[in-house]
């Protein structure tokens, strides 16, 4: 546990010390809110600001937790991962530290959006909601940190990861309903969005932040907080279960592939050629 925390702290420090990334990640939410509030303004949904903010917040959690996981590749290229893996710490806690820091940074970013949101009209009726929101963001952060680490350990080079992550995250975010309501999508793409785990994360998080846990099903479906797929209704709770399954699977897979990393097979990336 000590190792998990120490590694997580180290990743957080590194995130804060990387000035450009830090400044970008603070400006980034303002930019997004500005752009997307224009798109959502003339929408039919009641309380469009909250609706939009919840979507942006959770998509940001997704984006950051996935991206922070990829720092593992940098650690492999710079050699630091060798120092970690030659020590007696368990692979599980190394992966754990990585997940935790991804989830924490993702949640911080999401929270930043929500805080800005309070100034432009985001409303909740009970402070409990904000606690549920944070828990939900941590949960979603872990789910996609696992997915990110899985991609990272299987690509092994920063460039490849960048290409793959753009190729995967772009469609995932735009086919999730976070920015663009699903009903605006052509029917074929709607089906793709139903197999997109982010769709369910968005639905779950919106339900929580809009305080709709007690809303009747038909209303939820109309607001895209629940989905009717072939007669089966995916309620927000089923969405949560689905995410849990997806997250557990990838946390497991990524931990396994992490533990199996045989350094004699890791391609000698740019960082490995540093010569004494």
């Amino acid at each position, binding site marked *: 546990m000590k190792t998990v925390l*120490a590694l997580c702290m180290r990743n957080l*420090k*590194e995130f804060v010390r990387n000035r450009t990334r830090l400044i970008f990640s603070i400006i980034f939410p303002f930019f997004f809110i500005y752009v997307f509030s224009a798109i959502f303004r003339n929408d039919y949904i009641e309380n469009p600001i909250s609706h939009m903010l919840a979507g942006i917040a959770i998509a940001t959690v997704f984006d950051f937790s996935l991206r922070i996981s990829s720092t593992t590749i940098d650690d492999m290229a*710079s050699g630091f991962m*060798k120092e970690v893996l*030659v*020590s*007696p710490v368990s692979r599980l806690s190394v992966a754990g530290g990585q997940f935790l820091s991804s989830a924490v940074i993702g949640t911080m970013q999401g929270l930043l959006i929500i805080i800005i949101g309070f100034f432009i009209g985001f409303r909740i009726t009970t402070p409990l909601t904000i606690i549920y929101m944070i828990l939900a963001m941590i949960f979603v952060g872990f789910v996609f940190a696992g997915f990110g680490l899985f991609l990272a350990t299987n690509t092994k080079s920063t460039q490849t990861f960048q290409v793959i992550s753009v190729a995967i995250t772009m469609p995932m975010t735009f086919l999730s309903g976070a920015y663009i309501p699903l009903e605006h999508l052509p029917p074929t793409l709607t089906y793709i969005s139903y197999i997109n785990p982010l769709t369910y994360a968005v639905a779950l998080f919106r339900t929580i932040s809009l305080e709709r846990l007690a809303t009747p099903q038909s209303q939820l479906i109309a607001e895209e907080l629940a989905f009717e797929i072939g007669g089966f209704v995916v309620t927000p709770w089923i969405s949560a279960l689905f995410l849990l399954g997806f997250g557990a699977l990838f946390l497991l897979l990524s931990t396994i592939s992490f533990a199996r990393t045989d350094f*004699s097979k890791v391609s000698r990336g740019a960082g490995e050629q540093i010569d004494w």
Partner: protein
Amino acid sequence: MNPIIEVKNFTKRYGKFTAVDNISFDVAEGSIFAFLGPNGAGKSTTINTLCTIFEKTEGILRIDGKDVSTQKSEVRRAIGVVFQDSTLDKKMTVEENLKMHCVFYSVPKSEVNERISFVLELVELSEWRKKRVSALSGGMKRRVEIARGLIHYPKVLFLDEPTTGLDPQTRAHIWEYIVKLQKEKNITMFLTTHYMDEAEICNQVAIMDGGKIVANDTPFALKKQYTKDRAYITTERPEELERLLHTYNLDYIKKPKYYRVDACNIPTLLQVLGEQKDVITDLELKKGTLNDVFLEITGKEIREGTKS
């Protein structure tokens, strides 16, 4: 006494390429053991496999009686490693690097600060404690890595080319530490080097070439077996010297400016020199070096060791 490192019939292949080819050796506890060999000999491959980072292809490798493939955690606890390439966390400070290492190896919290001060003093970097690693010079980074490898008091310390790229003073210092630690803490040192003078300090030297160990003994025994002492003589009367060398039956090679004479029989050589004592203008006696050993066994020089 049981050897602390045992390697039997170890082979490592990268795909179809055999980097290490069926080698066997033992290392005695508390000794300094060196792998000497040219680039690509398979030294790093062997070290990386011994310290559980690479998977072996075949063979048995044990450290302190524990198998490196099936008892990885036990082996990892017993060793410290300084890899050939830097493994420092460059965005963090020297202290943060060392503290992290203490967490990994479960050094008791009450001892962490004391040990950090101790190892930093050892490598003379105490003033750099709070600096980012990226701000250090190459040699300083190397010293931090050596300090870090020692902080958990390992039984065996692996050093893959610990002194390559360091200035002569630092090199000498690092060797002081290595010998001191071996003597005082009984840490077994397993290192690789291209420098002959460094190999001379070790208790045992295995010469590696093309994935095979071609010789493995003490530096003294290696030199005794593979090299000859030689005298380099310059004289005003070369014909006379040649005649004398023939009569006393000493092997020699004639070079443009001097004669290279085998000096295995010192009394005879002294007699030759005595008869020529007024005409000899220059005389140099050279002991065999490990470089000669290497040359003798493999027919080539160790590229980077020749300057020693």
